[in-house]
């Protein structure tokens, strides 16, 4: 904790974000220039594709959804002291759960159709997330490695399903049949691709916030993330909580997968996620692990993804690379600038302590000396 007044602290925080943003823009320009692309023209194309029209804004919002949900889940896990690096696998299995529920449960028309799929997606994602949680809680195995290895297993399971038993006949690519409209999420903004999954994502942002800051469960999560040993000594069921938090985290990612199947795509397609689960780690960190901050970060990267679609016209191949590059740069820049600010605040503290002591004219305490 610093002695600096709150106003100075928030100013420093804003400054850190501004510096990081500016650095990212400069580095991205240099990168584009090195690849032989005029950065100004590229940024203009990106702006048009991300925010230039109603349709573009709808696309940006739609592309925010899976990123936001996964990042919320990852942030919950990190708050509980766990690194869920396996959201990508949880998305895939959540999507498979939703598609399976939509295809094989009795046909219920109306709103109940997608609800069954969404719940199935959440549960399957939660189950997959609980595995590394349980291995960590009861076998002491680092969840970073297990959650990540499970990604490769999950993707192969989905590949097997869509290439094998669930493959729709006469398809030119591995996918299930298009789900009946009653099982799918409806469009909510005419003239755009935005579906009701966006509203679910917004609701889950609120849920995550309330859960984390307004409930006992959230207090426990933050307590364990702060100090696992102390929480154990205080009598919290640490083992159970580690599993529960990872399951919850996986559930959020599973829900993202379900929305991709029930809303965006209307079916389960092989390789549908271009790495949302990995991107979401960066988004959770950029949002400083706070649900509303994460929503802002996810919006930025949803727009960036939509915008990189505008690059495709001028330079094929570039478009898919630009978004992860900017993200990686943004996180590294923010990480560095936040640390620099923290270090300078410490210097401020030291100086302030010195000045205060000189003013008070008393001998320094042992700590100050």
């Amino acid at each position, binding site marked *: 904790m610093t002695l600096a007044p709150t106003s100075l602290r928030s100013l420093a925080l804003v400054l850190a974000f501004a510096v990081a943003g500016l650095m990212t823009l400069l580095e991205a320009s240099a990168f584009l220039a090195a690849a032989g692309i005029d950065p100004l023209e590229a940024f203009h194309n990106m702006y048009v594709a991300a925010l230039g029209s109603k349709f573009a804004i709808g696309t940006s919002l739609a592309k925010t959804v899976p990123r936001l949900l996964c990042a919320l889940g990852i942030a919950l896990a990190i708050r509980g002291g766990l690194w869920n690096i396996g959201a990508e696998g949880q998305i895939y299995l959540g999507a498979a759960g939703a598609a399976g529920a939509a295809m094989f449960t009795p046909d219920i028309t109306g709103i109940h159709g997608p609800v069954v799929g969404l719940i199935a997606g959440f549960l399957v994602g939660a189950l997959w997330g609980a595995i590394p949680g349980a291995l960590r809680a009861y076998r002491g195995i680092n969840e970073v*490695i297990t959650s990540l290895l499970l990604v*490769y297993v999950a993707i*192969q399971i989905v590949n*097997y399903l869509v290439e*094998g038993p669930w493959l729709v006949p006469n398809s030119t690519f591995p996918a299930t049949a298009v789900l009946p409209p009653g099982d799918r999420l409806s469009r909510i903004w005419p003239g755009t691709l935005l579906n009701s999954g966006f509203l679910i994502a917004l609701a889950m942002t609120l849920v995550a916030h309330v859960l984390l800051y307004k409930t006992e469960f959230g207090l426990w999560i933050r307590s364990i993330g702060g100090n696992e040993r102390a929480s154990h000594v205080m009598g919290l069921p640490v083992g159970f909580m580690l599993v529960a938090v990872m399951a919850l985290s996986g559930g959020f990612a599973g829900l993202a997968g379900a929305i991709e199947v029930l809303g965006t795509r209307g079916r389960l397609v092989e390789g549908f996620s271009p790495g949302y689960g990995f991107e979401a780690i960066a988004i959770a960190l950029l949002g400083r692990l706070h649900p509303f901050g994460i929503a802002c970060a996810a919006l930025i990267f949803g727009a960036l993804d939509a915008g990189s679609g505008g690059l495709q016209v001028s330079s094929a191949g570039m478009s898919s690379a630009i978004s992860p590059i900017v993200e990686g740069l943004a996180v590294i820049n923010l990480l560095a600038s936040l640390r620099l600010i923290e270090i300078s605040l410490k210097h401020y503290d030291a100086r302030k302590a010195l000045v205060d002591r000189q003013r008070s004219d008393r001998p320094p305490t042992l700590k100050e000396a």
Partner: protein
Amino acid sequence: MIDTNAIVLLFTATIALASPLLFAALGELISERAGILNINLEAMMLGGAFCGVWAASATTSLFAGFVGAGLAGVIIAAVHGVLCIVLRAEQVVSGVALNVLFNQTAATYIAFLLVPLVWWGINRTVAGLALQATGEQPAAAISMGINVRLSRWIALLTCGALAGIGGGQLTLAGLGTFTPNVTAGRGFIALAAVVFGRWTPSGAMVAILLFTLIESLQVRAQILGIKLPYQVLVMAPYLATIIALALFMKRMKAPRGLGINV
């Protein structure tokens, strides 16, 4: 009747597949023993895989290719080092961010020769013992007059070089070209091997050989016509690693200063 030829082929494939992983795992082992965790091992391998091919084709020299691959890994390690050692940023965060960014050859024999060499270096040299002190009890190491930051820098850059070479080997010795995501999670497998091998070079080697044995079985099984969906075979090495970790890992004896910045 056992087809000896098939078994020889199986073990040849196992060893060939193991050496890129072994380079990366030994590098990571050195770095972790000094207390620096590299979630970005995959990025180092990928960087090495790319720059290796690039350098080799630019110079038409295989050796230059490996040098380029090693340098690429060193550069990624340097960025990680600035964030973790200089700025003391969270090691997992930095690693994740860097990841978002990015026939038998002589190298195979070198990878296996490195196993006893790394063991000797860590356990039987002054520098190696300083490295262990750095990783176990950074504060105590400082009070003993060990330059903890320097020690960590050396370990981290060594890791970058080795992981880069491992990645370079994938493209230079194996495929000859760079394709996106050519490493396919091998950096993470190497990370798991360090844990599974309990932070010892021979343990890491055994873990990697187990992984690549299953991986080469997968290739053979397809030829031998074993009736399993190929996806099951592709996921088998990953699944086996998780199951092995779950079954045989008791409490992990990670270096106590791992991930803790000084």
